[in-house]
């Protein structure tokens, strides 16, 4: 009985492992878009994974099949072939579409709260639990 349990748990984790392996294989880049230069293509895919599809809004352009996502994928590849750096491409996109186009919000003064508030709340929570415990220890039953 116990062995069967362990076996099922193993199967579960192996399935999860292969699931995450296949995630990397799922993308919407169409064959005619792919660049011949492997290094350039890898850069393009990396950038595409960070760029939000503005039509679907919760997908990257790397896995969206919306026409605008395709246009942006081609645009990124064109820019890479023209010799743009990654930063220049990101700047090009945010100049036109704002920071919303990045799936990860950039780290700057206006987004500090977004990045740090969770930790502040965590510390606050720990402090409150600490206070609570200290007080309940004093209570004599």
């Amino acid at each position: 009985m116990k062995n069967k349990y362990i076996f099922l748990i193993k199967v579960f984790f192996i399935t999860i492992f292969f699931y995450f392996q296949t995630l990397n294989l799922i993308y919407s880049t169409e064959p005619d878009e792919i660049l011949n230069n492997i290094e350039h293509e890898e850069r393009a895919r990396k950038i595409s994974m960070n760029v939000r599809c503005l039509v679907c809004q919760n997908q990257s352009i790397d896995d969206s099949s919306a026409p605008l996502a395709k246009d942006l994928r081609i645009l990124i590849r064109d820019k890479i072939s023209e010799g743009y750096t990654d930063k220049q491409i990101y700047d090009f996109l945010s100049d036109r579409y704002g920071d919303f186009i990045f799936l990860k919000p950039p780290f700057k003064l206006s987004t500090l709260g977004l990045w740090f508030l969770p930790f502040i709340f965590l510390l606050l929570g720990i402090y409150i639990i600490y206070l609570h415990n200290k007080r309940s220890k004093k209570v004599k039953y």
Partner: protein
Amino acid sequence: MTSKSKILIIPFIIFVLVIILFYYLLLIERNPSELPSALINKKIPTFNSESLFKSKIFISTEEFTNETILVNFFSSWCKPCRDEHEFIKKISQNNKIKIIGINYKDDSKKAIKWLNELGNPYTSIAVDKNGKIAIDWGVYGIPETFIVSSKKIIKYRHVGPIDKNITRKINSIISEIEYEK
């Protein structure tokens, strides 16, 4: 109340404030999928392309003259563009404004037929075959409309079809810009 129980009340106050904030965001009229515009108060992007009716090239630096201009991205395949068309025609009656159309990823023959059928409020129309001009303007879904001041600064942007309310808003922004001049 002891000082410790005073501290314990802080999370409760934060919780109430968050609830009020969420409730407020639910009640006000807004479209959460609408994106902030990066181009407001920036200079318009320049571009050259084909013209839809004229056989000459559309050069944006020549077409964007020193007057208030409404820029409208449209296409004959886009249903909301058809819906907003009568309102654009209404806006075109306002002689303080010039309307430039940008025909987005369309078949030029179909676009011409579409405009002959519905009427043409545009002073001139640029053809954006591959959507590159639209990307420069930060467009993510047509129809989209921009108001450009005589100094070639983008003053307003609307995503989605123009309706009665938006027409009123556009007209008031135009008169505001005219007043500032």
